[in-house]
């Protein structure tokens, strides 16, 4: 049994049901449990800017904390899509155990309306945790929609 743990934290419990032709066994249950420890804590886990105005810039803070026992290097932070988001500072950093670092995410919606979906990919030097992803979403409004919204 293999269980990826990338999207879990805290108590994890998984069960597999096996159905056989043994008339007395019924359904056999195999249980795996674990306590998943977040070594690199990233907060917030996702960002929703809500309704945003085109051309305006919005800011959110992102905090990374090393809750492990070894140093963690943030080797790269990739923003998807490029062009509408930026992050500061951009230099590579190393977090010693219990160290916390705050980044600023700047988001400037483009002229595209509808639903915006992006991602911040935080790359690390941890072999079993090569990246952590923060999902970003927003709803950019056109200037017309924006005027209508703010009149009400």
């Amino acid at each position, binding site marked *: *049994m*293999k*269980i*990826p*743990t*990338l999207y*879990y*934290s805290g108590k*994890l419990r*998984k*069960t*597999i*049901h*096996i*159905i*056989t*032709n*043994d*008339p*007395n*066994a019924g359904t*056999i*249950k*195999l*249980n*795996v*449990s*674990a*306590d*998943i*420890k*977040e*070594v*690199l804590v990233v907060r917030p886990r996702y960002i929703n800017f809500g309704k945003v105005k085109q051309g305006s810039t919005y800011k959110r803070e992102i905090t990374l904390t090393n809750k*492990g026992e070894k140093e963690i290097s943030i080797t790269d932070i990739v923003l998807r899509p490029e062009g509408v988001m930026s992050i500061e500072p951009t230099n590579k950093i190393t977090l010693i155990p219990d160290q916390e670092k705050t980044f600023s995410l700047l988001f400037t919606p483009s002229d595209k309306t509808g639903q915006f979906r992006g991602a911040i990919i935080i790359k690390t030097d*941890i072999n*079993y*945790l*090569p990246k952590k992803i923060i999902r970003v979403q927003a709803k950019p409004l056109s200037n017309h929609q924006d005027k209508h919204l703010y009149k009400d």
Partner: protein
Amino acid sequence: MLKLIKYFIELSVIFVFFPTPYAHAIPCAKVDQPDFYAGEVPQGKEIIHDFTLKNTGDETLVIRKIKPC
């Protein structure tokens, strides 16, 4: 009543002395340790564990379905 007792005695004798033709062969699925606690696992690390399913019966064991929940 005597007839009935006689019938049961005969039946018992048959089961004691000739059990094989009447025994129904069935598979028997056994897992010694169906619960596994992996302890504290760092997020991102895959949990890998092997469970052993044994057939202790006298008929072929068929796994009909494996359903992860």
